[in-house]
């Protein structure tokens, strides 16, 4: 057997999760909220597992980027946001879309390229949007949406609505120029915006520390904008909710932007085609151990929620995902009638008279 190559990232030392911070158990979070967060995490998990199955059945076309293992972040923020707040996400946006309350059926239908999809099939997995739920879009080119989130926050500021914009992005995104422009701009204009780095330790197939000048690619950049560098356990919905609530309230009160780095891990590969083999086995195992959902299940039991209650939540979520799947499969494929619509506000696409 050959010696492992220095550039074989799977042979590098594993980056294990930090020890659990038990302080969270005592946080002032209503039990009702916690149960909702449990349910939301299950929905995200079941929904995406189903999406994966449908992909294997060749019903989901194109690409898709799952948040399996990362559900606590979308969940914690989802629970902390007001219905009229704004979310901006990446191509890895299924979880964030659902966590804002967008209906799973049309979201699933979108992945299947159906006309009953939430974007009528025009956008696909990477562009999920539901303006009526404050989900202002999923952006598939790295960086831009941090700047766009600023705009929504600026608009809220001008309109005096106390709305807050939250922008989610990955660790890899911290190295692109737009990250820097967005952060500086947000601070200078004191915008009500929260920047949330979902640090899952990898960009696509490259470990983030190989390509970043600092160990915490988001938090260590905070001071460059006069911001605190906040690192949280991204696998703990309570930790996320707590940090989210604080940052959102601060923004709502006119206290300006925050930057939060939530450390987490994706269970699968970067996108549907990727087996994720560039990761040390021990690392994958350790993080699977740290799956946010069983962990939270245990916590709720410890807080006195009954196993039966949790089981019935599981069942209702399973039903929801089943219904979403049926809804999606029942949709027609969009036809010629919709191809040329909605380029312009007049509903059409004419570029000439």
């Amino acid at each position, binding site marked *: 057997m050959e010696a492992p190559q220095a550039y074989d990232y799977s042979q590098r030392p594993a980056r294990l999760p930090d020890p659990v911070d038990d302080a969270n158990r005592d946080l002032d979070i209503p039990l009702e909220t916690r149960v909702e967060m449990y349910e939301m995490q299950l929905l995200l998990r079941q929904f995406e597992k189903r999406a994966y199955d449908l992909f294997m059945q060749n019903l989901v076309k194109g690409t898709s980027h799952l948040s399996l293992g990362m559900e606590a972040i979308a969940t914690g923020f989802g629970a902390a946001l007001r219905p009229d707040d*704004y979310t*901006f996400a990446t191509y890895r946006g299924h979880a964030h879309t659902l966590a804002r309350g967008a209906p799973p059926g049309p979201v699933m239908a979108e992945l299947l390229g159906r006309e009953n*999809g*939430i*974007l*009528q*099939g*025009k*956008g696909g997995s990477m*562009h999920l*949007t*539901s*303006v009526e739920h404050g989900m*202002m*879009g999923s*952006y598939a*080119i790295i*960086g*831009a*949406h*941090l*700047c*766009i*989130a*600023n*705009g*929504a*926050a*600026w*608009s*809220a500021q*001008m*309109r005096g609505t106390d709305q807050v*914009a939250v922008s989610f992005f990955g660790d890899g995104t911290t190295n692109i*120029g*737009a990250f820097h*422009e*967005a952060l*500086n*701009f947000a601070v*200078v*204009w004191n915008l009500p915006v929260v920047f949330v780095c979902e640090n899952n330790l990898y960009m696509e197939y490259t470990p983030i520390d190989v390509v970043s000048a600092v160990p915490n690619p988001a938090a260590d950049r905070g001071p460059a904008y006069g911001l605190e560098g906040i690192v949280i356990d991204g696998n703990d919905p309570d930790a996320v909710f707590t940090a989210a609530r604080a940052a959102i309230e601060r923004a709502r009160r006119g206290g300006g932007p925050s930057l939060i780095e939530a450390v987490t891990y994706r269970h699968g590969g970067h996108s549907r085609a990727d087996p994720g083999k560039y990761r040390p086995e021990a690392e994958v195992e350790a993080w699977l151990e740290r799956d946010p959902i069983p962990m939270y299940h245990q916590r709720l039991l410890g807080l006195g929620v009954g196993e039966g209650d949790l089981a019935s939540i599981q069942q209702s979520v399973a039903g929801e995902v089943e219904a979403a799947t049926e809804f999606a499969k029942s949709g027609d494929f969009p036809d010629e009638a919709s191809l040329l*619509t*909605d*380029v*312009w*506000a007049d*509903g059409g*696409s*004419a*570029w*000439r*008279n």
Partner: protein
Amino acid sequence: MAELTYREAVARGIAQEMRRDPRLVMLGEDVAAAGGVFKTTVGLIDEFGPDRVRDTPISEQAILGAAMGAAMTGIPVIAEIMFSDFLAVCWDIVANEMAKSRYMTGGQVSVPVVIRTANGGGARFGAQHSQSVENWCMMIPGLKVVAPSTPADVVGLMAASVRDPDPVVFFEHKSLLGTKADVPDEDVVDRLGEAVVRREGTDCTIAALALMVPRALEAADRLAEEGISAEVIDVRSLVPLDTRTLLASVEKTGRFITVEENPRLCGWGAELASIVADEAFWNLDGPVVRITTPHIPLPAAESLEDMSIPTVDRIHQTVRTALA
């Protein structure tokens, strides 16, 4: 009716719209306190205050991102990108985000942004501050593209652009800023997608834009002296494009010539020429002809720049030769 410079017309047009719509805001580098590096936004901060007219960092992506996000959430925005060459540093937001969001979201998202930018050559600024990049924008589905040639059009098309619910790139020509003409005193509101026949003619159709319009008109004067009657069309709006006016003119004249400041390849003239060569083919009495800047980066030296951008002489000679 008062005589205004093209430069003054920019501020006039913006002010007209900011008065009409109290939501409308403007942002950009040095646009507020300083009134813009081209002095096209002088006085706006005094009338509308520093919350509606804002200076930004040198962060074009942040500027246009802010414009887009605000526009998506109910605030129409005018954003300045100081020189059109700098669209390259924020091209992703323009071409991939603003232009595509409505379609990608099945119509959920509206982006009522006007990107104003100083375009074109003639100021001896060299290759990175002199480009004509209307064609960069014309090729992106989802963008509207406007380039006025007169002060009145600046005001009227600015109003039309601001009132349009889709992203519009509004090209202000650097070499026209000092030109003067009458602008009505009352509100001026024009329409996107309408070309204007600036001079009627029967022997050929010359389509021109921005700085090329006065040059084409002057060339047409000279041609007239030689008995050639050229119709000159100010295209004004590349998207939407007034193909009707263009095709009707070619039907009458039988010849089509474009005058572009873009470097040769894939300029808007190519698009217009291809439309004419397809749809008006049987009306054509001779080849379609394009007059462009050569396919080179624009040189800085006065003597070289003057050889690059189509001149009255070159237009005159080229048309004469083509019609001979």
